[in-house]
């Protein structure tokens, strides 16, 4: 969470820029070098017919690309509806986003493991007392105040680690993404004054991922032919846990059914709703696997997934567009020296010599400053052209890697790369998966 409250959001410009410096982003990027596209495979120009999943990555968004020939309007509406209800678009992209954010958050939790008690736990300078005063104001969701002490905190922190692992692996994803959401929000909302842009992206994606069918490919769930008995046991256990939290009297105001302000919905409908749907899904799969009710549920799940993928895609667009358009107004971006300044901020120069070197000459600083603004402003529009979009994705990934190293913001940069993955072409993802499989195979001993 970058900002905490409406109040902090509207503070003086210094405050905003102080925040901004934390969140950096593509700005400090590497220039577009000639060999920059090497990492991107040939898929770029390939047509969608090779693509089993012409979803997000290939076209403009998670909607199917334009039909090859012009159908009548009624026909295209029918096709759009069929695509909307009929399949989960961008399944590979969803899987990559899931794996990416799982890894980012897992890496963060492990990196901060020695500091966890100071950051979010019983040793935090942002004491539970202070936190509760803020939480009673802003109503953010966190389970940590339920039981203040260390054991509960340790349980939540380590559950967060397990949830991240499960999300990466795609194990019982319907449940593990919810646990991921609960733990991410619980930790981050315990102390909102710790985060930067990276935490903010993880926070948002933790919510969005719950609504995607992100384990259709590249997951343990996809490998398991049938959900088996384990799923039912897990479902029952989670239901019992949820009931205990709901009716145990310790959850305070966090599990309400309604909310005071618009949109008047609390967290309880979400958790119980997901739980009921999961139960319904399993029951129908048992009783009438080929029946219509099950097919309706499947179609509903596809619709929710497709909407969530659209939200993820738009979120990424908004991030870049906001970052770009606000820069256009900045005098330092206009005079072409903007890049120089972050490279001289003490908190963001783990390698001062390297930063000084990068910021030492007029022309590179100018080109990267202008290039950054151009790329960020242009990104939304490049989605109209697959080839240009892919080039830009490669450029931005390189930028993020540069930021990770130069400004010492690896979590932010990797989170942004994971978010960008929603726009990666399916062909590239399949190519990469095949490569990874080929690397792995020789190590398997020949039977």
């Amino acid at each position: 969470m970058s900002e905490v409250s409406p109040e902090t959001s509207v503070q003086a410009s210094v405050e905003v820029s102080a925040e901004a410096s934390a969140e950096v982003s593509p700005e400090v990027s590497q220039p577009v070098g000639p060999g920059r596209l090497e990492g991107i495979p040939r898929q770029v120009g390939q047509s969608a017919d090779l693509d089993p999943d012409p979803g997000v990555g290939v076209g403009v968004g998670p909607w199917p690309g334009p039909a090859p020939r012009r159908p009548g309007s009624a026909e295209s509406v029918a096709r759009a509806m069929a695509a909307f209800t009929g399949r989960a678009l961008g399944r590979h992209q969803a899987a990559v986003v899931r794996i990416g954010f799982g890894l980012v958050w897992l890496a963060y939790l492990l990196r901060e493991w020695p500091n966890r008690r100071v950051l979010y736990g019983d040793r935090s300078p942002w004491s539970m007392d202070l936190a509760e005063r803020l939480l009673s104001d802003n109503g953010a969701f966190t389970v940590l105040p339920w039981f203040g002490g260390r054991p509960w905190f340790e349980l939540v922190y380590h559950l967060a680690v397990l949830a991240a692992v499960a999300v990466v692996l795609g194990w019982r994803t319907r449940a593990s993404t919810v646990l991921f959401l609960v733990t991410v929000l619980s930790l981050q909302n315990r102390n909102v004054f710790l985060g930067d842009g990276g935490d903010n992206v993880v926070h948002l994606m933790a919510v969005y991922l719950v609504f995607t069918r992100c384990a259709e490919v590249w997951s343990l769930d996809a490998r398991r032919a049938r959900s088996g008995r384990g799923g039912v046991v897990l479902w029952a256990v989670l239901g019992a846990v949820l009931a205990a939290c709901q009716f145990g009297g310790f959850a305070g105001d966090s599990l309400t059914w309604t909310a005071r302000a618009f949109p008047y919905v609390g967290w309880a409908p979400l958790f119980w709703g997901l739980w009921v749907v999961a139960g319904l899904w399993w029951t129908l799969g048992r009783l009438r696997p080929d029946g219509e009710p099950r097919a309706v549920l499947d179609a509903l799940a596809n619709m929710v997934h497709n909407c969530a993928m659209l939200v993820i895609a738009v979120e990424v667009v908004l991030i870049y567009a906001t970052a770009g358009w606000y820069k256009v107004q900045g005098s330092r971006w206009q005079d072409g020296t903007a890049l120089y300044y972050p490279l001289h901020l003490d908190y963001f120069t783990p390698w001062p010599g390297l930063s000084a070197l990068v910021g030492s000459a007029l022309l590179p600083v100018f080109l990267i400053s202008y290039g950054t603004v151009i790329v960020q402003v242009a990104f939304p529009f490049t989605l109209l052209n697959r080839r240009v979009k892919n080039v830009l994705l490669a450029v931005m990934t390189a930028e993020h890697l540069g930021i990770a190293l130069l400004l010492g913001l690896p979590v932010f940069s990797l989170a942004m790369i994971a978010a960008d993955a929603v726009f990666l072409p399916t062909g590239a993802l399949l190519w990469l998966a095949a490569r990874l499989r080929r690397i792995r195979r020789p190590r398997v001993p020949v039977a």
Partner: protein
Amino acid sequence: MPETTGRPAAGRVWSTPAQLVLGLAGAVLVVGTGLFLAAVFLHVAPANSVSRQYRDEVDGLVYPEFEQNWKLFAPNPLQQNVSLDARVRTAVDDGTTRTRDWTGLTAQDLAAIRGNPAPSHVDQNLLRRAWDFYDGSHNPQDEALTNPRGKLAEQYLKRIALQRIGREVDGERILEIEFRVTAATVPPPSWSGEAAPPAPRVRELPWWPVGDEDYRGLG
């Protein structure tokens, strides 16, 4: 996770109730998604006539969980290095007090960040953002609160420093603490021809009393 085909249920003919459910759900989802995205858009866009008109609705949707700020280094990057020092006053046995030397809190952070490929939030964000919080809720002239949450910011800042300094210095109990904040503008690049920035501004906060309750849970 249920297995799915990933293909349209080819040729499935929906019954009327199913069509109704799907049509209704589809409409709700499309409208809901559209409204949510519109709210997020209005939240990140500059204040405008529409966002003023629907401020309550937008804020209700966005806060607290969908809050976001993507003015990354915009409109201008931060051009200031802010560094915090703290010093304490301790009780001497004979009943007098002793004012101790400044401790470089930011300097400690920077020492931990230098050469570290993955700086911790403890070093990179904790103190820095606590100061942002304080700075945003206080008047720089007289340190008066500009926001009721400023009290929390004072507590937070004090506890961060006390956690690092400890309960005693050389066996003498800490009675009071004071912060000093130095804001140094980054000098412009050599090729810019701009004048050198003014000398760093130093801002001293008032002495704050320190009690045992300030140490609760600091470990």
